[in-house]
């Protein structure tokens, strides 16, 4: 493969945004090199590739860097035509995918992070928020995502599936272990629960998401070392 068409992904393994990009590359059969970035010590390479945000993930293709995971996913879909189409062809369906992807990414993920970063009453508020938002997602999915003939398999994985499983795949089990909070209850969120179960069964998801024990250790570390001490600051 020529040097210019080489694909490199800079990521940080506990971060779900890089994971979704990895899954997309694998689904499309794109060979790539993965570079683990230690986010506690920003490398020079990262600063030069993403000077605006100084964040991962960053995809480099043809020597050119692309940042922001949702932007990267759309780029991957437009550039490599093998494998499943990450976005549907119909503009209205595309709009719905983008709407819900942004909802999962911004609304749900933010509430989850808030839960990890706080304790006591603030944490309870965050949990309530998260639960309300999951209700909205459950309703939304009913009307657009789950028609009777939709199957979740390697040929039909899309952008919204990747965004969702990267956020909830490991994290919800981690929440149960670290915070003793059950986020995705099969009785309260049946669609979300069965969707997540089906996604977690896919080979590409199983081999890409970090094991739960690793995520638990990571979150526990971050909570002790960074999040909780910040709460006590005046």
């Amino acid at each position: 493969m020529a040097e210019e068409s080489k694909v490199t992904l800079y990521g940080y393994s506990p971060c779900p945004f890089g994971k979704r990009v990895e899954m997309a590359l694998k689904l499309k059969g794109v060979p790539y090199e993965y570079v683990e970035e230690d986010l506690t010590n920003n490398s020079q390479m990262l600063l030069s590739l993403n000077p605006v945000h100084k964040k991962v993930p960053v995809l480099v293709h043809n020597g050119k860097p692309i940042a922001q995971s949702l932007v990267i996913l759309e780029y991957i879909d437009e550039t490599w035509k093998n494998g499943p189409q990450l976005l549907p062809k119909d503009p209205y369906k595309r709009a719905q995918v983008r709407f819900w992807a942004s909802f999962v990414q911004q609304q749900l993920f933010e509430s989850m992070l808030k839960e990890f970063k706080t304790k006591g009453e603030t944490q309870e508020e965050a949990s309530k928020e998260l639960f309300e938002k999951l209700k909205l997602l459950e309703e939304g999915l009913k009307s657009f995502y789950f028609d009777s003939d939709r199957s979740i398999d390697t040929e039909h994985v899309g952008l919204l599936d990747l965004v969702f499983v990267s956020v909830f795949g490991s994290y919800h089990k981690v929440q149960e272990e670290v915070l003793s909070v059950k986020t995705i209850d099969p009785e309260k969120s049946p669609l979300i629960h069965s969707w997540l179960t089906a996604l977690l069964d896919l080979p590409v998801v199983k081999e890409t998401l970090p094991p739960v024990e690793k995520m638990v250790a990571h979150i526990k570390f971050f909570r002790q070392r960074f999040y909780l001490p910040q709460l006590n600051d005046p």
Partner: protein
Amino acid sequence: MEEGVKVVGFWPSPYSQKVIWALKQKGVAYDYIEEDLSNKSQLLMKSNPVYKKIPVLLHGGKPIAESSVILEYIEETWPQNPLLPKEAYERASARFWIQFGAEKGPTFGSLFTSTAGEEQDKAAKDALEVLKILEEQGLGNNKFFGGDSINLVDLALGWLAHWFQCIEELVEIKLIEPTTLPRLHAWVENFNQVPVIHENLPDKKRLLAHMKSIREMSISAK
């Protein structure tokens, strides 16, 4: 003949204005419905049950919410006068800047509701940093973010060309000046001269009065 297009908006909102700009730029006919945000309509609640916010675009009765999602839909549905580059990397670049602009909203929000003192100095400093990034890395040496003509990035950042001046006036700090941000300052002038933009801006006096009362409410609520 396209099925009915409706825009549910709010006259002072830059978010509903960008949708109007995109439709006008493409010559798409639409009906505009002004929403009273203090008394939200059934239509709004039904069309955007998740956020209950404007703007909402309805096409043939089907609703789409979130301005960035709406803009991409408009681009894909009416490809005339394209507002996104054809090439994948350039499209990714454009989308990056649209997202960047959206993420930095709170930075400008902090400036808008700040009062004189340390808090405001910091807010002004943060806002200036964002503007510098937009000028140096987003705009570069181009006339518009879209190059020689406007594109979705210009529309997404269009609020800087009209609404931001109201913020500057209310906090009495001028950030976009020809001496400090020459290219961005030029962009503001050029953007405002684009016919579709020029003919579709809320009245400045009315907007200033509206933003002043919002600001006062936010400050007293702190």
